[in-house]
């Protein structure tokens, strides 16, 4: 049976049999670190390519099609170019903070990979406060963005960073509140518990309309949190040229760029885990035969499929909608999304207490 769980277990047992427990743990750390960095690079490259292909599809053109089959190595070539470019630090910038900022953004994005369950039993760290960890660590990236904008000594960067700060801090509230609805229904902050609670149906189907509302709010909020159009005010090209990363070049720019795409992946992975059952196959209540057939599709396929569906949704938004203005953006959050999420949270709490879900 094709299962990633067997592989991880086999590696774990083999390491513990050949080495003493401490060394085994250390080598597991090493393997996980290398895998995380590799995943970071591969995901970044493939998502950039996917974005360009989706954009081309929506915009009735072909997209990259020259480097490799279907332009598959276009992003690799772009990365090579960025690595070879000079990493310029502008005169008058705070050199230490300017160079630190991209790493903070990147490290925050990489730490978020830890509690994500990629497949059944394939998870780096099943921490018992997984959801809290995700919301807490995802807020760190705003510090990096503010730092980049402030240290660049450029007014466009400063305006972009200020916009980004206001935006991310506001939209975290709605994202957090919609995540809490699932935590209330499950009664646990642990990712594996949340996924197992969806064994007889995903929350988006089990939770009736309130969970659907919180799913929609979650998607809007994470689109804003990851600075994606129509909420891409932080880097609004036609207004602020490139926003907070105007002055960055070479690999430092690439780190911001990759971190943005990793953040999209993680936001969509959280959405898929909480609302669409993560790696859990599509199950309906007690239809044993149907559930058994669905189990034949490997769990990693389910997870990747759901996540990339949500990513496609976010790309679709980006290439369809115009950008909001900063005051309209904050109005949307504070006047509409936040009150709706609060009321929705109360309804879900009532639902959970009365047991009004399947």
């Amino acid at each position: 049976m094709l299962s990633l769980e067997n592989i991880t277990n086999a590696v774990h047992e083999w390491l513990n049999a050949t080495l003493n427990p401490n060394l085994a743990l250390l080598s597991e750390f090493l393997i996980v670190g290398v895998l995380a960095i590799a995943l970071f690079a591969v995901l970044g490259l493939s998502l950039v390519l996917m974005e360009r292909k989706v954009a081309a599809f929506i915009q009735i053109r072909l997209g990259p099609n020259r480097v490799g089959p279907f332009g598959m190595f276009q992003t690799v070539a772009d990365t090579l170019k960025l690595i070879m470019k000079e990493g310029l630090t502008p005169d008058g910038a705070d050199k230490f903070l300017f160079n630190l900022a991209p790493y903070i953004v990147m490290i925050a994005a990489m730490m978020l990979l830890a509690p994500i369950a990629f497949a059944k039993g394939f998870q780096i760290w099943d921490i018992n406060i997984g959801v809290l960890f995700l919301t807490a660590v995802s807020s760190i990236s705003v510090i990096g963005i503010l730092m980049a904008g402030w240290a660049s000594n450029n007014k466009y960067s400063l305006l972009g960073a200020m916009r980004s700060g206001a935006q991310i801090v506001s939209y975290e509230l709605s994202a957090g509140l919609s995540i809490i609805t699932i935590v209330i229904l499950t009664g646990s902050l642990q990712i594996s518990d949340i996924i197992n609670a969806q064994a007889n149906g995903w929350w988006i189907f089990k939770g009736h309309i309130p969970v659907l509302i919180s799913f929609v709010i979650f998607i809007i909020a994470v689109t804003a949190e990851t600075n994606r159009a129509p909420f891409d005010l932080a880097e609004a090209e036609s207004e602020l040229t490139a926003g907070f990363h105007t002055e960055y070049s070479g690999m430092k720019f690439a780190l911001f760029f990759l971190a943005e795409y990793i953040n999209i992946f993680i936001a969509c992975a959280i959405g898929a885990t909480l609302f669409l059952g993560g790696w859990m196959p599509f199950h309906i209540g007690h239809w044993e035969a149907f559930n058994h057939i669905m189990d034949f599709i490997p769990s990693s396929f389910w997870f990747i499929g759901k996540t990339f569906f949500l990513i496609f949704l976010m790309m679709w938004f980006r290439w369809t909608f115009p950008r909001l203005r900063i005051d309209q953006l904050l109005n949307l959050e504070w006047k509409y999304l936040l009150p709706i999420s609060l009321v929705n949270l109360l309804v879900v709490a009532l639902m959970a207490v009365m047991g009004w879900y399947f």
Partner: protein
Amino acid sequence: MFEELGTTAEGDMLINIGPQHPATHGVLHLVMTLNGETIKKTEPHLGYIHRSIEKMCESLTYRQFVYVTSRMDYLSSHINNHGCSLAVEKAMQIEVPERAQVIRVIMDELTRIASHELWWGAMAMDLGAFTPFFYSFRERETITDIMEETCGARLTMNYICPGGVMMDLHPDFQKRVKSFISLFKSKFDEYNELVTGNIIFQNRMKGVGVLSKEDAISYGCTGPTARGSGVSSDIRKLYPYEVYSKVQFDEVLETGGDSFSRYMVRINEMLQSIKIIEQLIDNIPEGEFQAKTKAVLKLPKGEFYQRVETARGELGIYIVSEGGTTPHRIKFRSPGFSNLSALGHMVKGSKIGDLVATMGTLDLVIPDIDR
């Protein structure tokens, strides 16, 4: 002083939008005084692409100077040429054959649609929506193909010459224009679905960059900018030239004065242009496409003025002749310059995001402003 400090005496931030900036669509330089994101003052700095076209025209003959004007407002180059030819014909009292008149007007309106298509895509891009640009260029491409087939060039066509047009129409012209019309009509609803009806777009445009009717008149705004504020300023209606007096079309007027009104004027103008073309395309009279003129044109002594409606507004051509083969002095009244002068008034007190929403609807072409 402010280049060194970056702030004003009151502590407001000074920021240079341009001369290289994605939203200015050219080398326009705006020095802005900002309080946070709120605009306190906007000061356009011009001259980055000044080529002294007016002075150049003084050393060119009346046949030659027509084509230099293609490089002013390159998006309505055909209409610029048209205005210059009309001025020369008016001075020399040349009777243009009716076939040439109809061809000129059809090409004028095709140019106007092409220009508005480009504006539509570029303005949506200013607001952060990239996709409309590709959709509008899909239809614009068929227009430029028609232009190419007719006279060999796609943008600066140089098709008009004093006395008529350079050469006769391509045999496929009518067929291709008709297929363009049916294509455009089928795609026009898509434009409205994608952009006009979008709630984010409407929120961005409504009540933004308001220009009252009085201000529009006193700033000398013309074209869709003035008509969005309810000022009737369509030269095709007010001072008809060529066959415009014989065709049925409406002057599109909106009274809001905000960016959305200007947007709606331009969108609906495309439909009116289609209406004009539909009336003329089956009724191109037979006959000469060019009047018999002398090889070297000599204008009588005097001053001559002609105005035409370009895609951006009123273009005035003022020729002072001393009786020779070259003009003594030429002055162009370009629409973009006057429309830009109102920008500072329109965006005062609004956010930076509103600046691009306002500037987008002014449809500025910088070579037209600087000349």
